[in-house]
């Protein structure tokens, strides 16, 4: 009896120690990466980094202002394309389709599209936009990102719209308001915070994407405000600079890595704060 008890106690201790250690191991690596991004990235950041264009390789100084702007530019255009379409599709799932066959198919495919390899999306957009239009362009990059964004928005929009109780809809409908007005003025209003959260999370995710931009928005050494021209982005710049031969490039790549990581984390934290303020779980 005593022996069995001890053995069980021993296994318990062993198993818990193992999971503690593995947790420690995993967390250790993740923080190791964060630490390196911060310590290697900080020295690269100065005023010029945020305000100047890159100088030719080998020369000192210059910055990545064009890539910072490019990332914002491409992400904003992607958001303008992806968010309204995603919200409308989500609206269909939650307000009209609900349990219909169409709705289940859309749901199912959205869930799969969420995890589709992003480099394949890049190939797709190269084939339908870059080649026919005869050039790499910011808009091609934005379309690729919006395709990645779309299913995320569709699913979150549906989830948060469903959280609005049916009794609210019925109350508004009973007052004689048409369905679409109820959706826009009552349901959207009720779900606005949840939708914002979903949008922010999606924006955070796509702003860190590299693979779909390699063959679409490409790169540019200058400022670009034109959707039809190639544009630099922070992530593609990291890819090129990290594989480049110059020390200065590696430093700048770490700086860019720090900026993009910090931005993504801040947006994600902000998005989460929005949800927790609504419903303390």
């Amino acid at each position, binding site marked *: 009896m005593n022996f069995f008890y001890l053995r069980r106690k021993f296994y318990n201790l062993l198993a818990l120690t193992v999971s503690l*250690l593995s947790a420690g191991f995993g967390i250790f*690596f993740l923080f190791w*990466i964060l630490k390196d991004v911060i310590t290697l990235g900080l020295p690269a950041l100065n005023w010029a980094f945020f305000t100047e264009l890159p100088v030719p390789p080998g020369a000192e100084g210059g910055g990545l202002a064009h890539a910072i702007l490019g990332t914002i530019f491409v992400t904003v255009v992607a958001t303008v394309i992806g968010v309204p379409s995603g919200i409308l599709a989500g609206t269909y799932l939650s307000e009209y389709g609900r349990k219909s066959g169409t709705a289940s198919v859309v749901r199912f495919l959205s869930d799969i599209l969420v995890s589709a390899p992003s480099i394949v999306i890049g190939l797709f957009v190269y084939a339908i936009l870059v080649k026919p239009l005869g050039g790499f362009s910011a808009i091609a990059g934005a379309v690729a990102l919006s395709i990645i964004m779309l299913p995320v928005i569709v699913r979150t929009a549906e989830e948060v719209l469903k959280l609005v109780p049916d009794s609210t809809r019925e109350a508004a409908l009973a007052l004689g308001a048409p369905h679409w007005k109820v959706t826009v003025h009552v349901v959207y209003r009720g779900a606005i915070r949840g939708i914002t959260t979903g949008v922010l999370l999606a924006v955070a995710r796509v702003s860190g994407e590299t693979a779909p931009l390699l063959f679409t928005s490409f790169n540019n050494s200058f400022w670009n405000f034109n959707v039809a021209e190639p544009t630099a982005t922070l992530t593609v710049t990291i890819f090129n600079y990290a594989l480049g031969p110059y020390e200065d490039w590696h430093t700048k790549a770490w700086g860019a890595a720090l900026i993009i990581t910090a931005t993504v984390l801040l947006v994600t934290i902000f998005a989460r704060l929005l949800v927790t303020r609504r419903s303390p779980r």
Partner: protein
Amino acid sequence: MALLERHKADKIGDAVFRGVSYFFAISVVVLMLFIFAVLFKESLPAIKKFGLKFLVSSSWDPVRLEFGALPSVYGTIVSSIIAIVIAVPISLGIAIFLTEMAPKGFKGPIGTAIELLASIPSIIYGMWGLFVFAPFLSDHVEPWIIEYLGFIPIFNGAPLGIGMLPAGFILAIMIIPFISSVSRDVFQMVPPMLKESGYGVGATKWEVIRKVVIPYTRSGIIGAVILGLGRALGETMAVTFVIGNSHEISHALLDPATSISATLANEFTEAVDPLYLSSLVALGLILFVITFIVLVLAKFLIGGFSYKGGNL
């Protein structure tokens, strides 16, 4: 009369709104079919030329224009399996720690920190792998592996710090936050009643985890693992930096290899010949099909467990 007219306008408004939202919902389906169709059309020249041999041939010869997908497919699958083998126990450890062991004040912050790490862009993992982890491996870890484990064929090779094993490891680190936060969420869905009755009959914590929590959440965990696998299979940036880009299939895990996504990132803007290009798109199609199957599988397994853990 006015009321009737308003009624009519409302009806039109309703139809339009419904139609528009239906259009965008359907666009997801159309998009998916369109991606398949475009990839298929672009890979037709390669399919016509090589047929099914494309899948089993390991030749990748841009001079003689002979292409086979095997090395890339092999690398994609093996690096993902390595990632899963490393990541799953660690992720479950983290999930167990977070739900069953951590003191109350710790659970929230550590859980959130892990979820936040899941949002770090994958290129950061790849870059860190190349600049920090690869030199560390080749200086400190791999010489040791080769010296003491080198008699096992898979641990043979040169200490490059870059190759199949390092790529799998970086992938593992990348998917750990993902798998652990999903598993934590499913662990939390176990009704406290069940666990309490376990403790009530005198079971230890580990016995409750093993006999109650894990069986109860099995399909959810498997689903989380497969979702993680899906991410690993399709990942580009974390792999491309560290896998070594060699089209040779080697039994040794320390040797350089390649994956579908790494091949695409390396060679797509480079390929000149239409057949070369088409073979690359065909690789993309294969990757799309593999992940599609894996994700469908995950979806059916998670099925009952309606996962609401976020939008990862």
